[in-house]
């Protein structure tokens, strides 16, 4: 009887609490309190951060390593950290904190530094406590708060305390499936807003998933405006203010000695007619001659370096290249604008989030015959007229003049622009499969191949590179007579040709030979795990792949079996395969299309049906028999 009562009492509690007992490490709390003060137009902003974590096992003691980043816009102060051991009621203070830098592959030099320490004496049962203050030196950078983290959190809370003459804005993301409690407090000194969340799961990226901001529950707060002596001063009340701030930064660009930039722009375009052709020539010049090297140093991370110094040094980052294109294009009479943009990892709209969080990249927009052409020279291989793949769908903020801007969405490039056309001629000699194959790649299909060829080939020979990248037939496939055309030419299709010898492929048993013409098995590994997968699958670009495979029936054989036609049609993805015989030649026509940039969880089943039917189609062999 007693047991039953206890069960009943426990029940309601169990329903609402998450069970984290299988975890190794959880956050008991992660709190952030932002305090804003403004005096005569000068902001005093600080974040008080406190975190408490518990080791439920002694497996992952590496979580004891702590790192807190800062740069010239922030400072870290008053770090207090200790480990508490409940078993012995001991408290062991952190007594060594080191300031460090890191080399980052993407950014050559940055002012990003970090304070690092390790929590002492962590083991099963240990509870670590950390509190510190982060001073925010610029009111444009309040940052974001993550309700969820890489491990579960029992209590996550953000609060912001601000005087009554300040207005703040806030917006949360990916909170549909969690409960966020929001509270407003009014005191004589000001307001306090508090958001809190209890028992939230951990969030970890998945293979091919989109950036963490697409699924991680988080909130962005920002300062809209403040009032002093009856006058309202805007900070980031909407995208107009953001643009105003960007304009103030752009004004600081050093525009000395632009003459030499002009001379180069003129030289590049002097024998070319038509705005489009001129723009293309300038874009190609910047792609080919300016190498990507990024320096992020204070506001230098926001203000492009002068076009003339970028030309002299022959290197720059996105904004440096964007500004150089802007200067060159305008000089030869082509309307062009500096353009701010977020890559696909950022989910925000300028109209929802009018803060610098929204973008992380800069490009140039050229307006030619009323058409807006997005130019991103950091992608050295993208053809003129196509935006870089990772900016598709994103809002671009075009700076028209000091007061005017335009927000335009970068269009998704249709699949026809990124096509692979593959023609293969198969022959069978003494049981060994020989293939001559030609590939023509356009758009992003070409960009992807060329970037891999240039940067990922490492020490491999061309043939070995093809063996691992194209992975045709099997890993014994031997490649020879490789030729390539238009690797450097940005406009025309990349043409590849090679011969293959595929051992252990054609299967001869008694009087029959079994041959599978699907040596290219695109997408066959793309099934998603329906049970475990949580977040959408990202696709970099839309594409078409068309294959024509011709098999020459060798002398002394005739065809015994040719597979039936197969297809799968969905508006976003699909394929068709059909076989025919003309005289002594068996012909397979195959086309595969992907017309979406992301597969959402509710589409996983349909996607898997597509992949399964494709794999099924790949399994079909033709059969020859001796005459």
């Amino acid at each position: 009887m007693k047991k039953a009562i206890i069960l009943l009492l426990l029940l309601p509690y169990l329903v609402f609490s998450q069970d984290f007992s299988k975890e190794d490490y959880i956050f008991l709390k992660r709190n952030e309190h932002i305090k804003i003060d403004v005096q005569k137009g000068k902001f005093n902003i600080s974040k008080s951060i406190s975190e408490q974590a518990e080791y439920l096992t002694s497996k992952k003691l590496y979580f004891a390593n702590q790192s807190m980043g800062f740069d010239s816009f922030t400072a870290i102060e008053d770090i207090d950290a200790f480990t508490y051991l409940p078993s012995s009621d001991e408290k062991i203070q952190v007594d060594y904190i080191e300031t460090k830098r890191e080399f980052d592959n993407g950014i050559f030099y940055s002012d990003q530094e970090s304070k690092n320490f390790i929590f002492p004496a962590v083991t099963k049962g240990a509870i670590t406590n950390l509190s510190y203050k982060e001073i925010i030196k610029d009111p444009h950078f309040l940052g974001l708060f993550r309700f969820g983290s890489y491990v579960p959190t029992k209590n996550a809370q953000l609060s912001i305390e601000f005087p009554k003459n300040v207005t703040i804005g806030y917006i949360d993301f990916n909170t549909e499936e969690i409960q966020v409690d929001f509270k407003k407090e009014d005191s004589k000194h000001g307001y306090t807003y508090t958001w809190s969340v209890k028992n939230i799961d951990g969030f970890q990226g998945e293979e091919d998933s989109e950036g963490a901001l697409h699924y991680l529950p988080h909130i962005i707060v920002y300062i809209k405006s403040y009032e002093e002596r009856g006058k309202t001063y805007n900070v980031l009340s909407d995208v107009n203010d953001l643009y105003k701030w960007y304009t103030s930064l752009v004004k600081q660009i050093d525009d000395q000695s632009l003459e030499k930039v002009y001379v180069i722009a003129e030289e590049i375009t002097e024998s070319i007619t038509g705005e489009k052709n001129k723009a293309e020539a300038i874009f190609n010049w910047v792609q080919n001659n300016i190498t990507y090297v990024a320096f992020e140093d204070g506001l230098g991370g926001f203000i492009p370096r002068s076009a003339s110094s970028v030309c002299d040094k022959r290197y720059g980052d996105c904004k440096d290249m964007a500004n150089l294109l802007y200067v060159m294009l305008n000089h030869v009479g082509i309307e062009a604008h500096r353009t701010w943009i977020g890559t696909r990892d950022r989910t925000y709209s300028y109209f929802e989030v009018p803060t610098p969080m929204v973008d992380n990249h800069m490009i140039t927009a050229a307006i030619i015959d009323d058409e807006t052409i997005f130019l991103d020279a950091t992608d050295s291989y993208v053809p003129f007229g196509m935006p870089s793949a990772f900016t598709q769908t994103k809002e671009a903020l075009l700076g028209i003049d000091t007061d005017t801007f335009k927000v335009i969405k970068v269009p998704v490039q249709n699949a026809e622009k990124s096509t692979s056309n593959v023609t293969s001629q198969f022959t069978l000699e003494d049981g060994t499969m020989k293939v001559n194959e030609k590939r023509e790649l356009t758009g992003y299909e070409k960009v992807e191949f060329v970037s891999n060829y240039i940067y990922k080939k490492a020490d491999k020979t061309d043939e070995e590179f093809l063996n691992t990248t194209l992975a045709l037939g099997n890993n014994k496939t031997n490649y020879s007579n490789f030729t390539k055309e238009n690797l450097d030419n940005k406009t025309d299709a990349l043409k590849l040709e090679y011969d293959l010898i595929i051992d252990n492929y054609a299967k001869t048993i008694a009087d029959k030979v079994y041959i599978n013409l699907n040596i290219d098995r695109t997408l066959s590994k793309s099934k998603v795990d329906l049970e475990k997968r949580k977040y959408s699958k990202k696709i970099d670009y839309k594409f078409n792949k068309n294959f024509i495979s011709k098999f020459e029936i060798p002398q002394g054989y005739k065809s015994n079996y040719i597979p039936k036609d197969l297809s799968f049609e969905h508006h976003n993805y699909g394929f068709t395969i059909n076989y025919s015989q003309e005289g002594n030649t068996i012909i397979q026509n195959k086309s595969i299309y992907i017309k979406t940039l992301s597969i959402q969880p509710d589409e996983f089943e349909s996607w898997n049906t597509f992949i399964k039917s494709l794999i099924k189609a790949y399994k079909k062999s033709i059969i020859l028999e001796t005459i």
Partner: protein
Amino acid sequence: MIKKALIILLIATGSSFAQQYKTYNWEASPKLHELTSEETKASSIGILKNHIVEYSSSLLLPDLKRYETEHTIVRVNDDKGIARHNTVYIPMYEVTQVIDIKARTINSKGDVVLLNQENIKEVKNVDEYGDFKIFAIEGVEKNSEIEVLYTVEKEFDMYGSEFLQSNYKIKEAKFTFITGTLNSNIKAYRTSEKFESKTIDGIEAMTIVLNDIPAMIDEEYATPDANKIAVVYQCLPRGQDITQEMFWGNVSNNIGRKFFPEKASILIDTDLTNIFEGKEGLSVFEKAARIDNFIKSNFNVVKNNNEELTDLNYILKNRSASDFGILKVYANFLKSQNIEFEIVVSASRFEYKFDPDFFNPNMLRAFLIYLPTEKKYIAADRIEYRVGEAPANILGNYGLFIKSDLDYYFTKITQEDPDYSKISRNLDISFDEAIESAIIKEYQEYSGHWSATNRGVLSLSNDEGILQFKDYLTGTGIEDKIEVAYEAENTDINQTEYNLPFIVKSTISSESLIEDAGDSYLFQVGKIIGTQSELYQETERVNPIEMTYPNQYDYTITITIPDGYTADGLSSLNIDKSYKSKSTGEKLCKFESNYIQEGNTITITIQEFYKTHEYDLFRYDEFREVINAASDFNKAYILLKATE
């Protein structure tokens, strides 16, 4: 950290001579160098690498000074070449003064762009590497030459080393070692070129010149970084004559004195109670295993500059230690149980080939504890390893073994148990009624290094990592694999039994393993052994063959042929390739597969083993045949034909 432990007090006396770096300079008006057409096809090519090390002292400043000059000219031919060379990082480790840094670009038209000195940035305390001066080369285009010349003054240090080979071809590499009348030693690795004595401005020097050094390329089953041509050197303070034996003796003393306590610290008493309470009559192995488990569940090995991380009392309180300091913890726990041990100093064979004949502190990079009575190692700073064989990356390197009486010896770190790392797999295969899907019941046992890795990954990874690892454990390369059942045993990273196998029991199903062929089916039986590496390389092999560790696979695959079908094409299941010892004829590695058919059951047995981890470079083709035989089997298939 280790270097600090090795410092020997020195008394230097004065002498005076000129300094070469002051007169060494680059061409006043540089021109592009002539290259062969082959050389212009590479992404980049080194035209010159000149490294000068100069030790000097003067009467006024009796301290020994050390200068290093590095001068490089590189041609960059494409984007990859530019990306490889357009950023320069100069380490400031031990540097007391930068004498000069300059760089310039000569583009294809012959125009020269000089680096603006203001653009040299200073970066402090980068990870564990110290400070750097960094800059980006200005004015680089395709087909430019990048020239960098710098000289730094460094703290006096008796030793140094320099790689003369890189991952791109170098047409001329020079190393000059200027020591005047000071006693010095120098040695070059992996080149037949010899040092020549000469005098530079009247001062004695040694120099070595190498021409057309091929690029060191990354190959499978190789340790390319450790195989680069390199020089190591020692320069002794005036009047001193230290032999290699004296250096090693000194190290053994310095290190040894720290790690062989006369009595274990009383601060570990409570821990000892926790480890051993109620456990009587434990063997030496069991005691050591418990100590290892305890330390790895309670201490963190930390990489930072906190000097207290080598202080025993601090370590025991904070349960954090450097890779050096953690040895003291082990030493005290082992001492408390009177377990005999030795301290081993070595290096990862992927970074350095440890050379007992030439003392160079740079190669003293990894520490192990050796239990001579058990012939087993403890890898104190390797979270995934427990008492057993030496970690795979150290296996095969020489080690300095320091005994409790501070005497020392060198020996190659070998694997004591030849059958340490094994995988045995029993696979039962059946088909569903429609012959659309193959169902594979798997029973697998992993031992040795395999099991250490499996346990490590499963306890240290995040959920996504564990998911991917389970995919590996149930067979890689099966595109549409469905995991029907999965269970693993002996997964805990803390084990007290020697080489307890890690067991996986699973059932998977797959449709892609069955290919349709008219009214027959091709069953791709080979794919169930997982993707196998294929040594594709057609260019000449550069690196000696070194595998990760000796290992063995034993498979028993049982296939039940569905009713109404017969199996055909079984001949591809018979493979036999081996590599035999020239002296004994013993098979050193092999891949052998056979089958027997009884009624509707086919049983395939495979044995693949690699008895040693090192194979002869000149017999690369034979080795490759064995490796590729597994990849051949991976393509094996069986035809299932309807009985007529």
